[in-house]
């Protein structure tokens, strides 16, 4: 299967009063047709900025300084704003974290869906657009689509609003759907419904999904592959099975250990001590070095490169280096 989206060596900087934040520092990932890829990481790891740069929806203070984003082989970073307008909402669309604030409160649901069609489906007549909008409200599992069409966002519940946002995103059958924490703001039961809906619609319209989350349960539920981000870099990636059952990077292991388990009785949750690095002055070596329990001298000096573990599973950590392994063995033997 051909790659639908390829991101290579992406660097993004954001100017602030405190200096330039190097929010994304050399991120590469790709997405196959009909595949669901999850980008996982804590707040401030650069995951949202990464996908916003794919859409070129960065805040005015942010810019892509290096790297490439290719949609079916077509470079997006060099496109003009005018050309990007044709891609946004049509080839790539995005759904956001908080359904309560992501819809315009003064515009009817119907008009918010029709707005996308007006921009990208100029072949449709006004009546056809209305029909298509009602059809898609129905498709995302909302009853009485004709009534909902005329209603305003405040008349719908949070779960329904997220369905509407999904409807807007899928109105033009996008090739790539980016979901930025689509379930974080919802009740747990609604979360499961929304994830099921996304999976179901993915089957129907053959779209590829990038889902950003810090919820590993969501990842296990929906993703095929996982990228783990930390400090503006990807530290490990692989299939869901590999990441959950054979994590290699200390950060990934820490994340998994921090998930509360139903069958274990513990008083305290495992936490990763410390805070993420300051990206206005990012660490020279591994971004996780300051918080890692296994830090070596080299970790603080040089960034680790990826070590492959087969089946497209790779991890960027100095511990995987044969020299590190040799040294650890020597220390153990000596001890």
């Amino acid at each position: 299967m051909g790659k639908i989206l390829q991101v290579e060596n992406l660097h993004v900087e954001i100017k602030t009063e405190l200096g330039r934040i190097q929010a994304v520092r050399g991120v590469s990932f790709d997405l196959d047709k009909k595949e669901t890829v999850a980008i996982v990481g804590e707040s401030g790891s650069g995951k949202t900025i990464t996908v916003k740069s794919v859409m070129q929806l960065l805040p005015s203070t942010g810019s892509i300084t290096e790297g490439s984003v290719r949609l079916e082989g077509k470079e997006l970073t060099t496109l003009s704003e005018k050309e990007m307008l044709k891609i946004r909402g049509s080839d790539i669309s995005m759904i956001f974290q908080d359904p309560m604030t992501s819809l315009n409160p003064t515009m009817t649901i119907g008009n918010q869906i029709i707005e996308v069609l007006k921009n990208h489906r100029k072949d449709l007549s006004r009546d056809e657009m209305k029909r298509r909008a009602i059809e898609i409200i129905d498709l995302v599992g909302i009853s009485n689509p004709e009534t909902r069409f005329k209603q305003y966002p405040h008349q719908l519940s949070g779960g329904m609003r997220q369905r509407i946002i999904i409807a807007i995103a899928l109105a033009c059958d996008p090739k790539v759907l980016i979901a930025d924490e689509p379930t974080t703001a919802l009740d747990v039961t609604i979360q499961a419904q929304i994830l099921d809906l996304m999976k179901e619609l993915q089957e129907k319209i053959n779209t590829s999904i990038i889902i950003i989350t810090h919820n590993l349960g969501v990842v296990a539920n929906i993703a095929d592959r996982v990228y783990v981000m930390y400090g503006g870099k990807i530290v490990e990636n692989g299939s869901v099975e590999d990441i959950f059952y054979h994590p290699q990077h200390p950060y990934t292991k820490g994340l998994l250990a921090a998930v509360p388990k139903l069958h274990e009785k513990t008083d305290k949750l495992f936490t990763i001590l410390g805070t993420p690095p300051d990206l206005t002055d990012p660490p020279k070596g591994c971004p996780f070095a300051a918080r890692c329990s296994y830090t070596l001298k080299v970790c603080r000096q040089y960034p680790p490169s990826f070590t492959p573990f087969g089946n497209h599973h790779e991890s960027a950590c100095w511990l995987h280096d044969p020299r590190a392994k040799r040294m650890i063995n020597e220390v153990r033997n000596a001890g």
Partner: protein
Amino acid sequence: MGKYILKRILYLFITLLIIITATFFLMKRLPGTPFDSERFSQMPPQQQKQLLEKYGLDQPVSVQYLKYLNNLVHGDLGVSFFYTGRTVKDVIFGRIWPSVLIGLQAVLLGLAVGLTLGIIAAWKHNSGIDYFTMVLAVLGVSVPNFVVAALLQYYVGLKWGILPVAFWGTWAHSVLPSIALSFGATAMFARFIRTEMLDVLEQDYIITARAKGLNQFQVLMAHAVRNSIIPVVTILGPIVVNLLTGSLAVESIFSVPGIGSLFVESIKSNDYATIMGLTIFYSAFYILVVMIVDILYSVIDPRIRIQGNKDE
């Protein structure tokens, strides 16, 4: 909605009654009578008494008050003491149109210029036009309109001779007073919409709109402006009333025979009937505009529901 409007109209009458009562008794406490001219004091006592009797001023204030209310219910605002022989209605309607014309033009000009500047300022935040708008906003709020009026007279009227300096006659006479009057309102509108819009532009639904592939102009017009307009509507009420009922300073400077100057003259001459008539007119107009603004809210923002509306 109908029920709501009826209720508001009822409140309008109650409020008016309170205002009429308060104004009536306060006005009677003012020293002097409408007949304080030398001519009146030189009249023989018999004639003075007759005159007071004719206007009912010899009776106790409470009786005068009830009589006034009775006349009012029958639509009679009384006869002016100052403009002899003319009814108050006549006097007011004779002076109202210049004020309304100037006021309306000032409101429209203020809205057009103020909103445009404010929207562009917010859109191009921290740019040259943003700073220009902010400077204008501070000037508009702090420089009194009579200073603007004098400057306009001097440059536009006198030095360049483009428009008439003062007096009333053709439409051209209304231009300078309208501009002078609109200055403060322009600044207020610009400042309010700019502040609100800067906030709205940070909202999530603006990113949603951009993610749909809308261009900046579409995002601005379809999503940002409508959500930023509520504070402007709030101040629109009082501003419309202030401008339409005439500004004493601007009317004096341009010698416009408007309602603002009429009010001051009537107070100076203890013209009871005219004071009352104008007070009722001002108040009723104000309350009506506030009511219209309240109804406008629900038109602009569907989240603001009006009581008695069974939609939700």
